[in-house]
């Protein structure tokens, strides 16, 4: 639907993989159904637009893969270094 929102960053396969690693490490689960498998979407830089956010904060779109989930759209807040910058992998 329409063009991509100007504030969103499209992630590469490798960046999405790093997001899932972080979600696994933080034991992230779906707010609606408790599921823990997600598809990763785009990222939104929060640091500039939102007063309370750290300057390196992003919101990354996650979609719960449970087909029965009532509210599959959720997100995870990650600092740039954990998924976006070509920082050292740990």
């Amino acid at each position, binding site marked *: *639907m329409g063009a991509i*929102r100007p504030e969103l960053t499209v992630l590469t396969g490798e960046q999405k993989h790093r997001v899932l690693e972080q979600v696994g490490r933080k034991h992230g689960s779906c707010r609606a159904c408790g599921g823990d498998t997600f598809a990763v979407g785009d990222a*939104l830089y*929060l640091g*500039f637009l*939102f007063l309370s956010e750290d300057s390196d904060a992003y919101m*990354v*779109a996650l979609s719960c893969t449970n087909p029965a989930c009532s509210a599959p*759209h959720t*997100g995870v807040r990650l600092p740039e270094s954990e998924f976006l910058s070509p920082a050292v992998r740990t």
Partner: protein
Amino acid sequence: MTQLDYPAWLRIEHWVNVLFVTLLIRSGIEILSTHPKLYWRNDSKPGTEWARLTRKTMLTDKLYDTLDEEESYSAILSLPGHKMLGMGRHWHFITVIGWILVGIAYYILLFATGQWHRYIPYSWSIFPQAWNDTLTYLSFKLPAPLPGQPLDAVQKLTYAGVIFILAPFLILTGAAQSPAVEARFPWYVRLWGGRQGARSLHFLGLLAFIAFIAVHLMMIGLWGWPQLTALMIFGEARHLGWALTASLVIIAAIVLVHIAATQWSLRSPRTVQRALGSVLIPARRLILRPLASAQHYSSSQLSAEHRVNGKPPDSDDYKIMAVHNFVDWKLEVGGLVENPMTFTLAELRALGEKQTQRVLHNCVQGWSSIGEWSGVPFREVVNMVKPLPQARHVCFLTMQDTGRDEPSAEGSGQFYEIIDLPLAYYPQCLLAYEMNGHPLPIKHGAPLRLRIENQVGFKMAKWIERIEFVSTCQGIGQGMGGWREDNVYYDREVEI
């Protein structure tokens, strides 16, 4: 020829004028303080101001808005001071109505009684004569008045300039800052070099008026304060001692009016808002409300960076909705309607034909930008939900929590604004989901904002989540017609 004496009407108008002009100056400075920067170009681009009346600097690593740039001036300088733009606007507009009425009466009497001879020159020779008079003043001597007239050549020219050029110039450049006038007559604002040209010229007119007042007072001192104030109080140079006293009493009374207006505004702004609003609201509905927008700026005139006022909702729900491109956002439309409805963004996009308008945005603070907005004409949604006969206003409820999101503004709670229902049918009243050909940016109100091009910006709610048709503003906040009217005492009916 008429005897150029000092008839009662002339004397009364003079002192009323002193009151009005000083009220206009102080309330004008209040309005200036809310965006103390002056530009020549419509985009008000940060850094392009030709004058700054503030020492504030903005950090650019976070989104800042023009509320952060607002200054708080002293009440001695501005009416009422202390960042009370709403009060300043009320006083400026109520006084300008009085000033225009007194001015019209003055013009009529001037020409009906032949008193115009005192101001309007008869021949070009007055210019070299005025130059000679200026040289005489500069050598600390007083020139002779023109034969059979009360004024010397330079005085006659100066008064003519103030009465027939400067005063109308201030009114015309003021009108050029009304969004309704600009929207209906885009050529008129172009005439002044654009919205910011008009604002800058209005400011230069203020400086000219202050310079005139300073020289005027100095001249009265030079020529003899008691003699001249006697002419302006008793109509002739007699009772000089009484004239001096009376002049000081009149000036003290004018100062008292200023002090009273300031104290009333600072202590009880709600009663000022109600009292002055009872005159201003009908006046604007009558004069400015009929002006519908007919703006079509070209793409080349779009501002590269459109300024913003107000910060996006700082909540996780909003951020998660945004990162999913607002697919989960819904617009509820209800209240006093036959057919309450809910729309997704995709449904709104599919509604009828997309309307696009390139228009000048007027912030209440005085800055402007030009943007292109696309969306669905609000009247189409209104026609679908079918307002009940008792529906009179439309309330736009937003996802912004002002206390959380906008620390530079007084007040707290969910942001809402209310418009009169007839405005919904205006040609450029738009629910916009795109800006400059892209999805509406978050800082400009994503996913949906209102555009009503004959009003100032704060009426155009951003981050909308619900639209409610109501019969009265009472019961919504403080009942004054919107969040800013309720919390910071702005005026309703913001066609200017």
